[in-house]
């Protein structure tokens, strides 16, 4: 990482053409500098995805709007003197539809989506452990699912060593037990 770059004074930038309002030029340079730093920090993120993902995001939003409009129309719009339950959600849905339609047309060249990469699999794996915890909690109590979740996250998602994964997960669950069950006496479903 080049240290010299973002710490360089913003004033030392190759200045653009002379501006009649120096104050704005200053603020713009500063904003550019801040953006650059932000961009550098975001280097740790996956690269941005293409127009297809922009399009699909906009279409999903459009679908939400259409579903909302259809659903609220079915609820009954009523009239302005006597608004029905569907009037307000219908109005919002129409706004969503209009804005998403604009997004479909204009948003294709935006660069704010992120590609799904191999590390997205980590998120998927993490998600599985969350669902497993929620499903197992009422059946076998919180201790074993929590232990499993901690261990999976530490060992495989966080790439900690076997030893520290085991030690930290046992320690954390024990601490949770003391805090939630013994001290706060919260009725968590539990094995012991």
């Amino acid at each position, binding site marked *: 990482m080049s240290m010299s770059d973002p710490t360089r004074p913003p004033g030392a930038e190759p200045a653009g053409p002379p501006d009649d309002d120096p*104050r704005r030029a200053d603020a713009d340079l500063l904003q550019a500098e801040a953006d650059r730093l932000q961009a550098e920090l975001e280097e740790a993120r996956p690269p941005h995805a293409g127009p297809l993902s922009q399009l699909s995001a906009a279409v999903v939003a459009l679908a939400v709007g259409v579903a909302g409009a259809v659903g609220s129309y079915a609820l009954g719009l009523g009239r302005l003197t006597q608004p029905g339950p569907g009037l307000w959600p219908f109005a919002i849905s129409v706004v969503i539809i209009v804005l998403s339609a604009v997004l479909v047309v204009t948003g294709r060249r935006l660069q704010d989506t992120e590609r799904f990469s191999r590390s997205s699999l980590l998120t998927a794996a993490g998600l599985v452990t969350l669902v497993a915890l929620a499903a197992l909690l009422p059946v076998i109590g919180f201790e074993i699912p929590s232990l499993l979740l901690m261990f999976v996250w530490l060992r495989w998602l*966080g790439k900690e060593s076997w030893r520290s994964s085991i030690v930290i997960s046992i320690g954390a669950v024990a601490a949770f037990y003391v805090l939630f069950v013994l001290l706060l006496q919260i009725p968590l479903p539990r094995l012991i």
Partner: protein
Amino acid sequence: MDISPILEGFGVVLEPANLLYCFVGVIIGMLIGVLPGLGPGATIAILLPITYGIGPVSAIIMLAGIFYGAQYGGTITSVLLRLPGEASSVVTVFDGFALAKQGKAGTALGIAAIGSFIGGTVSILGLTLVAPVVAGFAVDFGPPEYAALGILGVLLISSIGNGNKLKAIIAACVGLLIATVGRDTFTGAERFTFGSLNLAEGIDFIPIAMGLFGLSEILYNLEERHNQVHSPAKVGNVWPSRKDLGQAKGAIGRGSLIGFVLGVLPGGGAVLSSLAAYALEKRRAKQPERFGRGAVEGVAAPETANNAAATSSFIPLLTLGIPANATMALIFGALLIQGIQPGPQLVTEHPDVFWGVVNSMYIGNILLLIMSIPMVGVFVRILRVRPAIMAPITVLITLLGAYTVRNQVYDIFLVIVFGVLGYLMKKFGFEPGPLVLAFVLGSMIESSARQSLLIFGGDPAGFLTRPISGTIFALVLLVALWPLIGRFVRRKTPARVEEKISS
């Protein structure tokens, strides 16, 4: 002005339990400001279940402490690691890290702490003076004014935040739509419940906030590559010299004012104000080239301003009931959970909450100043805790915490669903903030809009003919059309930026 409620507010704060919650809040805030990964919004969301068990005053004192404490903590990573903990500390990096490289990290941190303290305190004083006046003005507001204010708030936060504005407003509308799930309070009809008993009660604020702010951030951070190993710069003497203080004096004063004023505006007050304060100092300086090479003012100005802004952003919430940013939306939700409606009546109906919270900020800022100067060493050590260890612990706190609110596994699933939604939103460039904020304001906007229609006899033109709601709607229109106006006025700018990139 009657100052006895203010004094009673100090009485509330000085109760040992409240002092403890204030202390716990600022400690947590500073810690999460220092630790990578979670921001104050996520932390407050995750801790919402705790506020169920404690009184409203203590709960809000603690949550507020987390919020402004994080502003102090974020500075430490900016200066030592060149990693701004928060967007509002980005500009601090320029001179803060330069000072650290010269072996003056301690000076930078000390100046930042003193500036933050002064900025925060000036802002609380301003809050004390301004808030009751604004609340007094707003006390006569009727449903049309509230409907208008709510819409303005949602629109401002969506359009001032970072990211694509169109997407932000779509996200906000989805939040408004989610807020309609459940039984309609006017007609009793069930909306979007799909026959589910759980959905008939509506969707609770806590799982939404925990999922969209807390869990989604953890899931999102799992993809980050943690290959950069930093070793924090050494921290020497933390007390800034008299010369440094003298240099920073003006910057701190001006930063306080800029922060206070910009913080009141909904949207990125803290971020905007730190940029503005830095820019102003650089313009005023006799040798602007010092900036970026370790100018003390370059640390003092933004850090003072962001703290002042964090404090003054409480004003719209406590006086109008309109949260100025995503974190304030969480505090709004926490107040609602406690059965307290934030708004102009707050100062008269719940003076203990109002003045207790406001005055707790004096104490909190003093605690932070005391802690941050001698304890920098401790916080530097905390920087070594790896995100890989923090993540599963936070996940467990989130999921088990969600369960404890109503002892229902359904709530855990709800958190997971909204966590995934938030993750996907971030992947596709939608900010979850506007959604949560709109969700919080949704039912208020709907019910005031419908009440207004009843008042007006079904004529929506009534919104525009009432002077105050009409003015607010004019503002709404201005904000909505601003991008178009802005494009017209600033046609020159893009060309210049392109030139800058190519040169």
